[in-house]
């Protein structure tokens, strides 16, 4: 059974804090993604990685960075959290050849 696991289900952080969201997949997938999910806006791609240490900006990378030191782990970093980053964050992974994406359960982040 394929598995994408996000480290936290709920997170509350203060404005200005540095926040780390972690995602681990056990399927040996090359591609990993971070999205934010907001009502009426759907899923918007923040960052994407197609290999260890490789990353590509998505549509809304401002205020975020990522790290992929190992194939199975993809971290999303909020350098200085702001209230407009309150959202549901979804991690996903996929193989290069087989293009179906598998999703984590999501992390609901609230910045106060």
């Amino acid at each position, binding site marked *: 059974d394929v598995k994408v696991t996000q480290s936290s289900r709920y997170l509350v952080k203060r404005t200005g804090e540095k926040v780390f969201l972690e995602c681990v997949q056990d399927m040996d997938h090359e591609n990993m*993604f971070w999205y934010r999910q907001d009502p009426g806006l*759907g899923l*918007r791609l923040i960052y994407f990685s197609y290999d260890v240490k490789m990353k590509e900006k*998505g549509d809304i990378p401002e205020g975020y960075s990522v790290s992929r030191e190992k194939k199975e782990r993809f971290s999303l970093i909020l350098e200085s959290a702001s209230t407009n980053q309150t959202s549901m964050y*979804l991690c996903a992974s*996929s193989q290069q050849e087989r*293009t179906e994406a598998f*999703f984590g359960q999501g992390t609901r982040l609230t910045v106060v």
Partner: protein
Amino acid sequence: AQRVTQPEKLLSVFKGAPVELKCNYSYSGSPELFWYVQYSRQRLQLLLRHISRESIKGFTADLNKGETSFHLKKPFAQEEDSAMYYCALNRRHDFNKFYFGSGTKLNVKP
């Protein structure tokens, strides 16, 4: 750039009625389209993809390249179909990135 458009935020139908969730896309390459579904308190999961040309849970979707559409259809909606539905485009020539629409909430009333 708007790559996937789902014009309806909410679609309410009665049980047994036909349902069609609309999706239009823009992509100059060869598109690969998907429908994902998110039931209440569950993770997003694949419902079907255009390549498979299969019916899942009674749902079908046909890729119409002329109209750049990939509408999701079911002839007789069931209450358990109530969920959030997302149309997604995979850009094969752009590192296989996935782009999603804004989603349509389907509410099937008893």
